[in-house]
């Protein structure tokens, strides 16, 4: 028996003695995240993930961060395969570039769960489940918020709205616009969507787009933005033009800036997406997969509506 095996034996014995029977059947789950330091959504996600794992004595987690670097994420996926984790959670830095690495995990028999933003469809066959927000429902719910507000105001038969979408080509942007555009005519058939333009998830871009809309159209009753960051950009443009009072602003992914604007009564509603729910859902999905439960491929967590009416039920977002 070599020195190192002796050591590891001693350690394992100690661990079992410490952890009791629980340690013997514990599972190891590895996670590689996109870029933890870049915004507080991701930072809060990581903290919530670690906290959730600590609460469960049967779970050990290996928490890695790719720092936004695809090459490093691929290396981390390979490392997790090498470490023989029981399941792997990936927050893709690039929904396409990780597909071959995900296939390697699949071939090694390790179930892969994608979290937050999905990988491209070519990779679906190597993935057990996607845990994240349902962007189509988010879009649909935004349409409902918009329609309900118009009904309250009594302009549901004449309102004209514009849409500011996220980055072209991004799944999240496409799905939210799709959900919104499908649902709106169902609930408010007489509201007209006059134009859609991309705001690239960027507040300044969105502000420019809205400035152009304000010049182009004398009558705008509502603005739907793919997220609150862009929504606040549009709001700023309308405030500058002195037309914010006549417009209903609805967004998605409630940001702190959106929440504050709602508190001031300038912004009407959004969709509340909590990084804590996101992280806990990912861990739970992994555990359910390991427990052999029948997990749906698209395992969405709930993202409720938030408006000026019910915002007191929600904490101010951290991002």
């Amino acid at each position, binding site marked *: 028996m070599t020195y*190192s095996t002796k*050591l*590891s034996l001693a*350690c394992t014995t100690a661990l079992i003695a410490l952890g009791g029977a629980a340690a013997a059947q514990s599972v*190891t789950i590895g996670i590689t995240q996109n870029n*933890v*330091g870049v915004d507080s959504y991701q930072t809060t996600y990581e903290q919530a993930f670690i906290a959730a794992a600590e609460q469960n004595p049967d779970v*050990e*987690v*290996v*928490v*890695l*961060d790719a*720092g*936004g*670097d*695809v*090459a*490093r994420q*691929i*290396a*981390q996926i*390979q*490392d997790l395969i*090498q*470490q*023989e*984790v029981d399941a792997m959670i990936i927050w893709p*830095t*690039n*929904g*396409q*570039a*990780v*597909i*071959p*690495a995900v*296939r*390697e995990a699949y071939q090694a028999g390790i179930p892969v769960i994608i979290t937050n933003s999905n990988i*491209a469809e*070519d990779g679906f066959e190597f993935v057990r489940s996607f845990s994240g927000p349902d962007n189509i429902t988010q879009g649909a719910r935004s349409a409902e918020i918009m329609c309900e507000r118009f009904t309250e105001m009594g302009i549901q038969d004449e309102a004209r709205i514009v849409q500011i979408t996220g*980055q*072209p*080509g991004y799944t999240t942007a496409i799905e939210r616009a799709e959900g919104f555009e499908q649902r709106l005519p169902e609930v408010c058939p007489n509201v007209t969507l006059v134009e859609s333009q991309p705001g*690239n998830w960027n507040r300044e871009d969105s502000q420019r787009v809205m400035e152009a809309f304000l010049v182009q159209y004398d009558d705008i009753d509502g603005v739907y933005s793919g997220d609150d960051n862009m929504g606040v950009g549009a709001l700023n443009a309308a405030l500058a033009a002195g037309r914010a009072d006549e417009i209903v602003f609805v967004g998605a992914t409630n940001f702190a800036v959106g929440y504050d604007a709602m508190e001031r009564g300038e912004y009407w509603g959004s969709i509340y997406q909590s990084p804590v729910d996101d992280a806990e859902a990912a861990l739970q999905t992994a555990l359910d997969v390991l427990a052999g439960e029948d997990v749906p491929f698209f395992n969405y967590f709930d993202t409720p509506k938030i408006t000026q009416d019910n915002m007191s039920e929600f904490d101010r977002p951290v991002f």
Partner: protein
Amino acid sequence: MQNDTVKKLVKNGAIWAFIVFQLVFFEVAGQWWSLSDSAFMDADNMLLLLKQSAPIGIIAIGMTVVMINGNIDLSVGATYALAGIVMLDSMNWPFMEAMGDAAIPLAWLFALVTGCVLGLINGVVVWKTGVDAFIVTLGAMLGYRGLVFMYNGENPTYHLNWTMVDIAEADILGLQTPAIVFLAVVLIVWLVMTRTVHGRNAYAIGDNREAAVNAGIRVGPHFVLNFVLIGFLAALSAVAFYSGSGSVNPNDGMLFELWAITAVVLGGTKLTGGRGSIIGTLGGVIAIQLLRKGLGHIGADTETVNLVIGTILIAVLFLDRQLNRKGAEELKV
């Protein structure tokens, strides 16, 4: 004389001693802190390490040659991304699509040519304007990155071809393709630097450019050749990596130049030129990847890796300076 040999050994062996230290440390520490059942010094893990080192490693080999010259190339990260984009995008061109899998070698060729051309531009500008390579390639870094964004905006460039992935994942004796490419590059460039006139000239120019000119070495064309080489290697690195991943983000390769320079300096190459070795750089590359991997193995934060590497880099430069100063004093006696 004997003192000299010892000193040389210490200087060239330091990086390898450091690697051995890391291996032992992570192996032992892993017993306590790692959640993994497999050992750190597992053979498969070490082979994987070589593969993971390849993207920065291949570039670092080129960087060593350029730095021995007394130059530097900051544009390698952008060249890497642009070559990757050309390779994957070319697969979507109609005539390439019509060729099926036969288009793969052609796509590789396009990428390598892109790298050579970008390197050639750097080299010719350095030669003809006499502007410091640092400034020239700093401009190139920004300019080439601009080209990357012009190509496809902020969207990723994507082409997934499983044949290409299979080639990239193919392994011979456990070594996957990128690792083989990396080792081949190390071997070839090492031979060039130690066995050819071009290699000897590289050291001579870096050591004393004026003396080299007086000795009849054509410094300008020599520089151009080396910039083409590093452009080629940056593109080769992209070929090895993106064949296996199939998608380029427009910000890919950012900071690669700094990681490559770090590896080169860790390996004992002097920033001022004239001294350095390919094998030392291989050690530097492995040391960095080992740190990243090892700290992940024992469950340390990703940020810790950068802190540790930064600290070690300064320690290495300090050590180098101490050894050199002693050398200078010895001469006086």
